[in-house]
């Protein structure tokens, strides 16, 4: 009982509206920021100003050095996202299907989730060294829990009738996973992936921030050390742009996998 075709013709029109409004929002925010900085309402020492930030980004792009840093950070974030999501999914599924185990481990998982990762930095360095893997581990500890909790809940929310029906048709546990639980929990999983994309980047940057010699987090931390707010913000803008790119990827996959939706 979903929407009939009528709306179809207006799709492109709607998209234009959306894009226009997005640009408008961006322009208003940036203009306000620039004006605020120019008029002294926003202290450029803390906030820099959009034109300066844009200038910094252009410089970086022309110098080209930024790509190396960006690539490192991206690599860390993507690895954290992939490994964290895979582990979260796996453990989430396992525990959702083994309620006794879930009940036993429940307090431990919640305790681990509450550990401040920043404090664990020395241990991460100890185990994973100063290379990308300590940053991946950082991101992992964020992504894992987010994906885990949602996968777990998503699988427990699956309609009983669907499960019973599939079982009566002969589905074994693994087949149930593939044909019933996973597709049914997909919207849960993707919801957590959208949050995770951001957190994977945050994990990578914070990891770099705590010890590194390259990556956007390193750039930002150097800039902070010398009070170069412009470079700090430029680094964050670059990151944000990258996040949007990754999220477009996630969104594509989501749309493909959920193509059966109304």
């Amino acid at each position, binding site marked *: 009982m979903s929407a009939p075709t009528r709306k179809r013709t207006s799709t492109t029109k709607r998209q234009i509206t959306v894009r226009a409004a997005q640009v408008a929002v961006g322009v208003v925010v940036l203009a306000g920021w620039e004006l605020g900085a120019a008029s002294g309402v926003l202290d450029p020492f*803390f906030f820099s100003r959009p034109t300066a930030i844009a200038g910094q980004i252009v410089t970086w792009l022309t110098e080209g050095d930024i790509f190396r840093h960006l690539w490192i950070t991206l690599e860390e974030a993507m690895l954290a996202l992939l490994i964290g999501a895979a582990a979260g999914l796996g453990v989430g599924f396992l525990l959702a299907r083994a309620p006794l185990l879930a009940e036993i481990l429940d307090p431990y998982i919640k305790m681990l989730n509450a550990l401040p990762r920043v404090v664990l930095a*020395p241990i991460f*360095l100890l185990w994973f060294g*100063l290379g990308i893997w300590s940053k991946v581990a950082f991101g992992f500890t964020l992504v894992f829990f987010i994906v885990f909790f949602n996968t777990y809940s998503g699988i427990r929310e699956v309609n009983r009738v669907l499960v019973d029906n599939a079982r009566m048709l002969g589905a074994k546990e693994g087949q149930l996973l593939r044909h019933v639980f996973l597709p049914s929990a997909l919207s849960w999983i993707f919801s957590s992936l959208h949050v995770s994309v951001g957190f994977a980047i945050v994990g990578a940057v914070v990891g770099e921030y705590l*010890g*590194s*010699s390259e990556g956007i987090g390193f750039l930002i*931390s150097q800039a902070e050390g010398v*009070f170069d707010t412009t470079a700090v913000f430029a680094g964050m803008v670059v990151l944000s742009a990258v996040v949007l790119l990754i999220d477009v990827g996630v969104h594509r996959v989501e749309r493909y996998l959920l193509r059966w939706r109304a």
Partner: protein
Amino acid sequence: GSGSGGGEVRLGIGGQPLLVFMPTTLADRLGYYREEGLNVRLEDLGSGAKALQALQGGSVDVVSGYYDHTIQMQAKNRPTTAFVGMLRYPSFVFAVSPKASKPINSFADLKGAKVGVTSPGSSTDFFLKNMLVRHGLAATDAAPQAIGGDASAVAAMENGQVDAAVMLDPAYSTLVKRIGGQNVKVLSDTRTLDGVQRDLGVTSYPASALYSGSSWLTDNPETARKLARAIKRALDFIHSHSGAEVAAKMPPEYSAGDAAIYAQAIEAAKSAFSPDGRISPEGAEAVYGVLRQFTPEIANAKIDVSKTFTNDYVPAN
């Protein structure tokens, strides 16, 4: 740890942009490590404590950090030795916020005040305690407030979120630039010999240095010697050039915030940099004295200060 093969030296810095560690980066920029035949990889660990932990965990070979940590490590039975000194004065500036909640004209006025330190348990924290005690107060009379070492510290001072703070450069210079020197009251400035003599009662007080595990030193004497030589040359460079000239040799990002301030901060710090890379035993004892006073663990341990540093690797000149 990774990549220690091929003669690579992994050098962890407790906050690369901090001026106190400048010679480490400068030596790299000037190519001195390479000229010594070393392949040095600089890793910024953000804080001295993190850098030390990285050393203990084996992710770096050598640390550019504060000398105090070698004493703390001896108390923990993890012998570490500083083998070249970079800074002979601690270079802390004890400044009063223009918006302090009450008038503060001397250390005595700090009773009950909130005083910013980079982080609790850091050298700035010990410096604060030391100052309080030296001026007849109890170490706990002022509340230490962690404010970090960068823009947060500047913001906290500007807005009067702390009454005073123990600051480092370039944060201090930045603060002065932003609110004007006349608005910043300085209770103590240990960037100069005068300040160090007056406030610490010594002529030298080793601060930043290169150190490493004692066993690494015995195993890699040549590397240590080369590192010390490179640092010594960087120190020479600093003393023989103007602040602006030195700034020009540092990574361009470091001047990006405000080139003038950066050069000026270097200029102001010059006299604090060691002329010869040596660590004075008298200064080392002074550091130990402070630590012993405020850390029960160190007070209780048997410390042999002479094992915490060595000048054997520093070129005679």
